[in-house]
């Protein structure tokens, strides 16, 4: 079981002080939070991707590479990578590079994004969201698996004899999760490829999460990747804890009431009942988290959102300290009753082992394949 955190990189005023961090402070805080995640023993740190204020989550591989240089163990992931509006060729290059730099501590979660204007800003049509996710991923999947790709599709300029560099580390592409809250087509896509499926059920009732995960599991089996209970499932989650439960409620309430996503809507009481948001003591957070299995079966990855809604860095780090305290019990709880045949989430090491060991995937080229000239000839040619 992998346990980790994910951030959406929102720059939100602290409703209790009215102060909004600067972009610089928030970017540095993100790195501090990621380092803390490794310190307390978490398995995964994932960042979102946004291309508009109030977020600092653009350029995710820059952030992840910088964090990768300051950590040793934690898996760096995304939540999510915009497969709709980002050129799959750039995704292939960026994340393969990140794999090499971090010695394989990389996976990705594909998503369609929730900010409408991002589509036109990047020259796409939002009405084609699902089709873009399907076509772009089909190309990305090939770019990491075939050294030379000829490709023609609907949304991107064609490729002839294209090699995405660097080739994936050890010849093994990063593991991919597909995240979707409400699009069964994406669960179907994850099942088809035998990839992971992540349901960020933090804003949604359990009943809906269960339906989406059930569909993915059923179709994973249908496509021959294993039995339904061997499908690779991840869930979002959200908590606020203090040693004394009532202190947690009192401290978190103003952040909840003013949160950009659900603020000024349902009461904290109603929302904690309807969704996985848990406010209370560490023991309560532990028990609630372990109960997620009742809805989706034994699963592989649990990511929590902890740095959002204007919570100050100090509070976020305290939350992580408390999470660190219940982490051993959480791991023990998740291991309890887990059948042997339910796999862990794939890692670079497990994927390399499954592929029969590491390969050097380098595509050695004599000359610049695009122009046919050696680099040293380039000066003459340019004149």
């Amino acid at each position, binding site marked *: 079981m992998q346990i980790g955190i994910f951030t959406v990189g929102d720059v939100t005023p602290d409703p209790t002080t009215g102060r909004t961090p600067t972009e610089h402070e928030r970017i540095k805080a993100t790195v501090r939070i990621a380092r803390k995640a490794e310190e307390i023993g978490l398995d995964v740190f994932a960042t979102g991707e946004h291309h508009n204020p109030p977020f600092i989550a653009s350029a995710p591989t820059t952030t992840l590479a910088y964090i990768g240089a300051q950590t040793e163990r934690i898996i760096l992931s995304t939540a999510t990578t915009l497969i709709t509006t980002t050129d799959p060729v750039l995704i292939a290059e960026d994340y393969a590079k990140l794999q090499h730099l971090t010695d394989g501590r990389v996976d990705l979660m594909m998503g369609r994004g929730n900010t409408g204007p991002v589509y036109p800003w990047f020259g796409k049509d939002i009405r084609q969201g699902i*089709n873009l996710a399907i076509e772009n991923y089909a190309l990305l999947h090939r770019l990491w698996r075939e050294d030379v790709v000829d490709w023609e599709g609907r949304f991107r300029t064609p490729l002839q004899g294209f090699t995405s560099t660097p080739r994936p580390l050890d010849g093994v592409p990063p593991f991919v999760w597909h995240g979707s809250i409400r699009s069964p087509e994406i669960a179907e896509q994850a099942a088809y490829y035998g990839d992971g499926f992540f349901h960020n059920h933090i804003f949604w009732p359990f009943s809906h999460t269960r339906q989406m995960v059930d569909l993915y599991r059923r179709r994973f089996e249908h496509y021959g990747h294993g039995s339904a209970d061997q499908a690779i499932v991840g869930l979002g989650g959200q908590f606020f804890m203090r040693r004394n439960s009532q202190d947690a409620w009192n401290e978190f309430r103003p952040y909840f009431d003013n949160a950009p996503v659900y603020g000024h809507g349902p009461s904290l009481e109603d929302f904690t009942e309807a969704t996985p948001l848990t406010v209370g003591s560490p023991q309560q957070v532990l028990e609630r988290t372990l109960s997620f299995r009742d809805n989706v079966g034994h699963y592989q990855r649990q990511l929590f959102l902890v740095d959002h809604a204007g919570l100050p860095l100090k509070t976020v780090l305290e939350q992580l300290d408390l999470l660190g305290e219940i982490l051993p019990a959480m791991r023990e709880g998740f291991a309890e009753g887990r059948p042997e045949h339910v796999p862990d989430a794939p890692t670079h090491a497990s994927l390399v082992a499954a592929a029969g060991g590491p390969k050097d995937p380098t595509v050695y080229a004599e000359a610049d394949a695009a122009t046919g000239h050696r680099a040293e000839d380039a000066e003459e040619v340019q004149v």
Partner: protein
Amino acid sequence: MTRLVVVSAGLSVPSSTRLLADRLRDAVVEALDEVDVEVIELRDLAHQVTDHLLTGFAGPELAAALGSVREADGLIVVTPVFSASYSGLFKSFFDVLEEGVLDGTPVLVAATGGTARHSLVLEHALRPLFSHLHAVVVPTGVFAATDDFGDAGLDRRIDRAAGELAALMGKVDPTAPRRRRTVEDELADPTPFEELLRRSGEV
């Protein structure tokens, strides 16, 4: 069995909107042999409708109401007139309804107001809304001003509109697919990925 759902957006209890809704319901029930009827009072769902707008998901009672509308073979929708249009609550309920749910559904539109001077609200607000939702709006809409509740003309309009709705509902084949596929359809019976892949390339 044929399913009739009545959506009433009156705010007071009792309300003249609900009174009109009940009379329309009775007239449609009388015109059809057998029919399942459910009345949805939007006042009871007002908090959950607003929460849905803010959070993106429906609370349990609202989810049940939206499910009933999805399954309906015919709808009667009744709103009070507020500021020259349907009420905000009425519109918000249809705003949180999933796209495609009313495709081809016969709908009887009705409204209440203080005076008959508001009656064109049926034509300039309700009818375009339900046309946009791809519903089939029956030709006769029913407007009831306060005075109309003492006028025999209202009965005639109710009977005519109810007859039109019943006639359309009588022709509904409950087994025939008439809607675009919704999330619920996909969850129950997903489109195979090869088909999704093929469609993604279609211009």
